[in-house]
């Protein structure tokens, strides 16, 4: 026993000795390396340390361009001047001196300058003091370089919009990264002082747009003056994004929305063959270059993207859904009802907007007769309507690639069961069938519904980005139309719906978009809401005769009043922009019809 223990100890000792020898060798090699660095290369590295006044100025990569569908540039970059400071070997007195001199140039930024110079002193790194200084000031500072050691003026790219606030709700804006975002994104290569997209496409596609920053390594002498550029890592500009937006159309609808009585609203133009958004505007819009604080307290909520975030009662445009549900339930379109201007259910009275007298289905759609729809809905019941509404994509997000989309709301028996007193009354059906009551939709959903009617059944996923390309033209991303759902109705029903909607244009409430050379279908809506004046809706599709429709749109004016009067002219302007009447008469010259 003792012998075996001894032999174990002997072998184990040998192994521990091996470990110790191995460690000794490792330490010897560390000493060798130390000798190599400090004795053999000491002089060289000492010189390098002296030269280590070299400073790296980050070279900001230009962000990718944002273009419209015709490759017209909407956003590019303009040069701006920024002030950098590094304080190798500067005493705190020198720093104070430099801060005082700079404050003379920028009296309003006194606090920021002092803080940034303190930061530069703490880190010993090249620090950005002020961005975007006026050209003249930059020139003066460059001339005074000798009295401002360590101060550098650097040219950087800055986001510039060619068309002001055009499509600001879609494109979003960029700003310097804040500490919260930095914490989240540090591992993805973001660093302090960089620009980052804050909302919209600038935010969502930031990884494509941002490019890669470079660096400029300067050798500086003891007083901080540049001696020479040692090393340059060039920056890589970001990828360009081509939108599906048509710039001209976008301008038209933004101008028109701004001219409405309430200046609040949204308009969306879709290509019903693909789901591409040709124009989408939310009014009022904000200017990204403005101070955000100014817009924050605006009662019209400019930051609120009405086209996808706003939940509104759809009013009569919802009759398209009710009609589809009724037709699927084999509704006889020749059936007539008499409209006395009101409808009595129990002891409650539901109004129609005028006295239509005797109406068949086509007439009821054309003149938006509520009483006809009340009768029709009470016969088919609420369930087919709810089911049809969901088929048309209501109550769900449209999955457009923009932040904070709202799903809207489609009530039904099940919804009432869980969310209210539980019972579905016949009065609910009456409200439901004309898009009142609890029904809430976003303008985007309305536009996608019209597009689905126009193309006879395909509910597209709306998209805004056509493709993303590198500056050399390689395609990084190409969007393909994506179907969200197929609405299963027989062709005859689609045909009847089209005929009815075209009837709205030729003889009904939607005559504002009448164009004899086109096939145009429309539906107006005047939605009552408990918070104020009626909301105006106008949905339209249009196309050349004997061809599939190429245009679908939804116009919404918040508290605008009558759909045909408030939203109709905008719809007409859109149709006329896409299909110019004749070449000499442009939209601007045309006087608005009453």
């Amino acid at each position, binding site marked *: 026993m003792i012998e075996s223990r001894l032999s174990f100890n002997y072998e184990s000792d040998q192994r521990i000795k091996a*470990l110790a020898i191995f460690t000794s060798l490792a330490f010897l090699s560390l000493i060798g390396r130390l000798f190599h660095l400090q004795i053999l290369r000491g002089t060289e590295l000492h010189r390098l340390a002296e030269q280590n006044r070299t400073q790296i100025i980050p070279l900001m990569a230009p962000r990718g361009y944002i273009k419209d569908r015709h490759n017209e540039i909407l956003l590019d970059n303009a040069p701006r001047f920024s002030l950098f400071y590094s304080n190798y070997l500067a005493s705190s007195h020198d720093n104070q001196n430099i801060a005082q001199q700079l404050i003379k140039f920028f009296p309003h930024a006194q606090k920021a300058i002092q803080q940034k110079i303190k930061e530069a002193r703490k880190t010993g790194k090249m620090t950005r003091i002020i961005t975007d200084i006026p050209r003249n000031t930059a020139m003066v500072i460059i001339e005074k370089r000798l009295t401002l050691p360590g101060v550098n003026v650097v040219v950087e790219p800055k986001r510039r919009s060619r068309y002001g606030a055009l499509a600001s709700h879609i494109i979003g804006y960029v700003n310097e990264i804040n500490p919260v975002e930095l914490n989240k994104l540090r591992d993805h290569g973001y660093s302090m002082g960089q620009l980052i997209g804050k909302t919209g496409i600038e935010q969502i596609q930031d990884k494509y747009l941002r490019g890669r920053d470079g660096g400029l390594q300067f050798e500086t002498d003891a007083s901080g003056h540049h001696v020479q550029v040692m090393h340059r890592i060039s920056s890589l500009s970001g990828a360009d994004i081509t939108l599906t937006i048509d710039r001209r159309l976008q301008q038209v609808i933004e101008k028109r929305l701004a001219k409405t009585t309430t200046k609040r609203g949204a308009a969306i133009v879709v290509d019903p063959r693909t789901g591409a958004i040709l124009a989408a505007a939310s009014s009022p819009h904000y200017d990204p270059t403005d101070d955000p604080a100014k817009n924050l307290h605006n009662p019209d909520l400019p930051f609120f993207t009405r086209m996808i975030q706003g939940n509104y009662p759809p009013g009569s445009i919802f009759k398209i859904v009710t009609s589809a549900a009724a037709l699927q339930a084999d509704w006889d379109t020749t059936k007539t009802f008499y409209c006395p201007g009101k409808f009595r259910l129990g002891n409650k009275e539901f109004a129609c907007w005028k006295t239509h007298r005797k109406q068949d289905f086509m007439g009821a759609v054309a003149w938006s007769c509520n009483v006809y729809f009340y009768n029709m809905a009470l016969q088919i019941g609420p369930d087919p309507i709810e089911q049809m509404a969901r088929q048309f994509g209501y109550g769900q997000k449209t999955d457009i690639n923009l932040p904070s989309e709202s799903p809207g709301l489609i009530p039904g028996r099940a919804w009432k069961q869980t969310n209210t007193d539980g019972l579905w009354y016949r009065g609910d059906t009456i409200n439901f069938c004309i898009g009142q009551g609890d029904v809430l939709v976003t303008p985007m959903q309305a536009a996608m519904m019209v597009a689905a009617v126009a193309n006879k059944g395909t509910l597209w996923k709306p998209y805004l980005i056509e493709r993303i390309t590198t500056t050399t033209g390689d395609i990084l991303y190409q969007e393909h139309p994506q179907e969200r759902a197929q609405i299963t109705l027989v062709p005859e029903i689609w045909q009847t719906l089209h005929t009815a909607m075209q009837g709205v244009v030729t003889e009904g409430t939607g005559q504002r978009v009448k164009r004899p050379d086109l096939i145009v279908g429309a539906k107006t809506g005047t939605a009552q809401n408990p918070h104020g004046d009626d909301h105006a809706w106008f949905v339209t599709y249009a196309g050349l005769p004997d061809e599939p429709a190429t245009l679908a749109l939804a116009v919404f004016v918040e508290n605008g009043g009558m759909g045909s009067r408030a939203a109709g002219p905008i719809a007409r302007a859109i149709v006329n922009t896409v299909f110019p009447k004749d070449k000499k008469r442009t939209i601007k010259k045309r006087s608005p019809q009453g």
Partner: protein
Amino acid sequence: MTDYIPQYIQEKQNSHIRRAIMRMDWSLLTAAVLLSLMGLFFIYSASAHSGQGHTYLFRQSLALCFGIIGMTLLMILPYQIFQTYAKWIYIISLILLVAILFFGTRMRGSKSWFNLHWFYFQPVEITRLALAVAIAAYTEINHKNLQRWQGFIIPFALMGTHLGLILMQPDLSSSMALGPMGLAILFAAGASIPILTAVITMGGLALGIPLISTYFTLMGDKFQHHPFISWLARAFTQQIPFIQFWIGICVLIIGLWWFLRKWRIHIPLVYLICTLAIVCSGVVGSFGVKRALKDYQKKRLIAFVDPEVDPLGAGYNILQSQIAIGSGRFLGKGYMSGSQTQLGFLPEKRTDFIFSLVGEEKGFFGALLVLALYFWVVWRAYDIATLARDKFGRFLAVAIGTFFAFSGIVNIGMVMGMMPVTGIPLPFLSYGGSGLVGSFIAIGILLSIHIRRYSL
């Protein structure tokens, strides 16, 4: 009657203490204390510029006091007690590691600290000793099993659990020292060398493959003019060529075996199968590692091969650190006047890169002194292992010695550009209270083993 203590008992007690003092390893204690005092000095130098020198100095000094108290307690305590309660010690360490995942405070991306109001406590500095105790206790009883691969299961399970829990924080650098520590115990316990080699190969493949593939991904198409390297790059970055490549390697191994057979060099089939199994499991393991490592960690690990990969990030740090050390030359630039450090070129100068600071401000002699003291600590640990009275003490001392050796070599190698940037701090010198207390506790255990090397 009650006050009466027989003379010989009193004498025996006195002689106990006297013998303990005589058998004490004073040189180890001196080296450790000297190192930590140097640490205090340089931590102050590293922080003075930002005006926080006193704060850091005070905190580290306090930790040193606690460390020395802890060391004294553990020195007095017979170390065999750890063997008796090894199971409980291990379980408590697991509880600590699990608890930190729930109640820990997240700092710099990893949840490794308990917030105890007036200080932060990093339990991994203590749990690693618990792991050493557990493995040593197990190996003491089962060292004969280590000739067969079945004998490795439990030690590896013990290690793997700790490793997994620490990686979940995630704290890559603290987890790295565990492997060598455990392997050293097994090695000292006479484990079969082929099996150990196989394990190390497997681990090497599992860690190496993701790094190589990250390297090639970062380099992009820089190699497109070299047909062989670009082929290799494809093999490591794309999925199908990757599988083809490793099947090719396996075929190559089989072919080699077959040819050797033709040449009348017979190698048993078992070895072939084992080799193939090792390669395969290494490749499979690499997928797990690939997922566990974060991009910046992979980048840091390979930046030492080629600082160009990340010239403004990880590579920049290594370069600045080398410049700092080299520019110190023979005698250094003097205390508190290293330009690299004081002007902020040197990253993490209080913690991971403190050795560069020593090199810059105290030159070759200062750095050599640190290396010598450090080496002495390791050397003493291994010596104490061979002198220990039982196997448990022997294994524990080997583990502690290996931990100090590994951390020291990897850290100092890193700051001199010989090793990847791993974020392992230098025990005794780097700023960090838990680390310092943990190191002194380890020294206490070593002293306890040494004092009791003969039966008392």
